[in-house]
């Protein structure tokens, strides 16, 4: 499965308070969440993003609070996937569980700038930066996580456990 989109570039330690500030943590509606996504970093974020765009971040993306509204808002705003040098563990877990595609590739992040066109081969472990004409690899998901991703999130795992 391939993802394709333009890059929105951010730096190190983008924490979940910035992705979805505490004052909006009571929201559960996708459209409302989308409207506030990343607003403390870039007030026009939700207007700039086109469906399928890809966030490219440096280290420790998603650190801080476990609030699931952070990855949910990123998904709701239309982001197709995230590529970072590294992630905070709860954010990583939440993203897999809610079906937000998320990848680790320090080499890709190093070479990628805002506005570049990326294509990600999710299970092939390959990212192509079409703008720069470069190709990068990332470690494949462990089989267990791959299953969850293929099922579109934790739901499939839960229903299987429940024998449905």
């Amino acid at each position, binding site marked *: 499965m391939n993802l394709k989109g333009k890059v929105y570039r951010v730096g190190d*330690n983008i*924490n979940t*308070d*910035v992705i979805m*500030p*505490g*004052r909006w*943590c*009571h929201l*559960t509606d996708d459209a409302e969440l989308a409207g506030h996504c990343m607003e*403390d970093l870039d007030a026009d974020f939700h207007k700039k993003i086109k469906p399928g765009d890809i966030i490219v971040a440096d*280290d*420790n993306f998603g*650190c*801080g*609070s*476990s*609030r*699931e*509204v952070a*990855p*949910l808002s990123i998904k709701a705003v239309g982001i197709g996937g995230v590529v970072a040098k*590294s992630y*905070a*563990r*709860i954010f990583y*877990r*939440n993203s897999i*569980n*809610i079906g937000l595609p998320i990848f680790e590739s320090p080499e890709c992040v190093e070479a990628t700038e805002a506005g570049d066109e990326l294509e990600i081969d999710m299970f092939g472990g390959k990212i192509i930066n079409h703008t720069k004409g470069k190709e990068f690899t990332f470690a494949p998901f*462990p089989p*267990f*996580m791959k299953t969850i991703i293929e099922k579109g*999130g*934790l*739901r499939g*795992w*839960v*229903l299987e*456990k*429940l024998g449905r």
Partner: protein
Amino acid sequence: MGYTIAEKILAEHAGCEVRPGQIVSVPVDMAMANELSAALAIKELDKWGVDKLADPARVCLIPDHFAPAKDINAAGIAKVVRDFANKHRVKYYLEVGRAGIEHAVIPLEGIILPGQIMVGGDSHTCTAGAISCFATGVGSTDIAGAWATGEVWLKVPQSARLTYTGKLRPHVYGKDLILHTLRDLGTAGATYMAIEYQGEVFDQLPIWDRFTMANMAIEAGAKTGLFQFDDKTRELVESTPRYMLEKPHYTIASPDPDAVYALERTYDVSDLEPQVACPFSPDNVKPVSRVKDIKIDQVVIGSCTNGWLEDLLRAAELFKRRTVHPDVRVIILPGSQRIARQAFDLGLPQIFIDAGCIFSTSTCGPCIGGHMGVLGEKEVCVSTTNRNFAGRMGHLSSEVYLANPAVAAASAVLGRIGSPDEL
């Protein structure tokens, strides 16, 4: 090759040998959520068409973030959670007035015990590691999964062993040790790891400082922060209301002498002075003597990090016969109703009120910029909480300095960041 505390607890629950990196599905002893993470989890269960919980006795719901309800919307969310608790006969639904902040309530009521596994819909769930249980923060979908199946998938973490030696100076506490550690490790220094804290320093400190340090394990990116079970743990655990009533069995997981640690540090903290984490990261840490002279508008003392009775005592000691600086507002947040009650028994609220502080109710409100003490434009706050990211406690231009309760109290009196020694 031996095992660490985390590996032993996970192996016991998984029913097989475990090694770091392995993914295991384990039964959870408690799946906890606050009203915000619970609301999303309930929505998720609805979407999945799941109408039955695996075990309502292993579910804990505590409204504390926007509670007491900050507005109509928050009241609505709290109601969704309350109705869910009633419908499913959730054993541990703790209402406003009988609870407090989840991470203070849970270990003090005996809802979680040593050797157990708890997942919580809040990143500071790791606080309970202070009593030697594997407690870790997850998101709402994980909580929904744990409620539905009774299990959760976990990657067995590598472990980090942090050792603290020396003799502590006055007014240096667990908060200073963990801030000192964060300066060294950074906010991603222990990502995916289970921290084990140990060392002779903990003989000089009450058990409450362990909670402060376990609480902030997540600030180094860790999955959990654990202390080894000892007499102090036993004394606390076996005096909790649930333990006294039910006498539940619990297990003790001690690390093997040849356990393997991916990261080891020894900190000699004899010369350590109180530490302050400056904006905008918990790892931007300096000794208090190097951040003096910063004028402040607000002080928050309490929370899941430093809202333990001992913390209130340390602050009250400094407020005795002193008054809060005219330019400063002080909010005291006891960790739970039980702690507040104990504080009343000791006459602490009277000291705080006489000094000019608010003795507030247990809530996460101010810490997350939610309500009951939100910062305005360019305001500066000294807080005993755990995070100081931009905008964390209010306006994006406001600034938060993290410190221990004694430094926070001294700063409140001085009107600027300062050390208790200056009073």
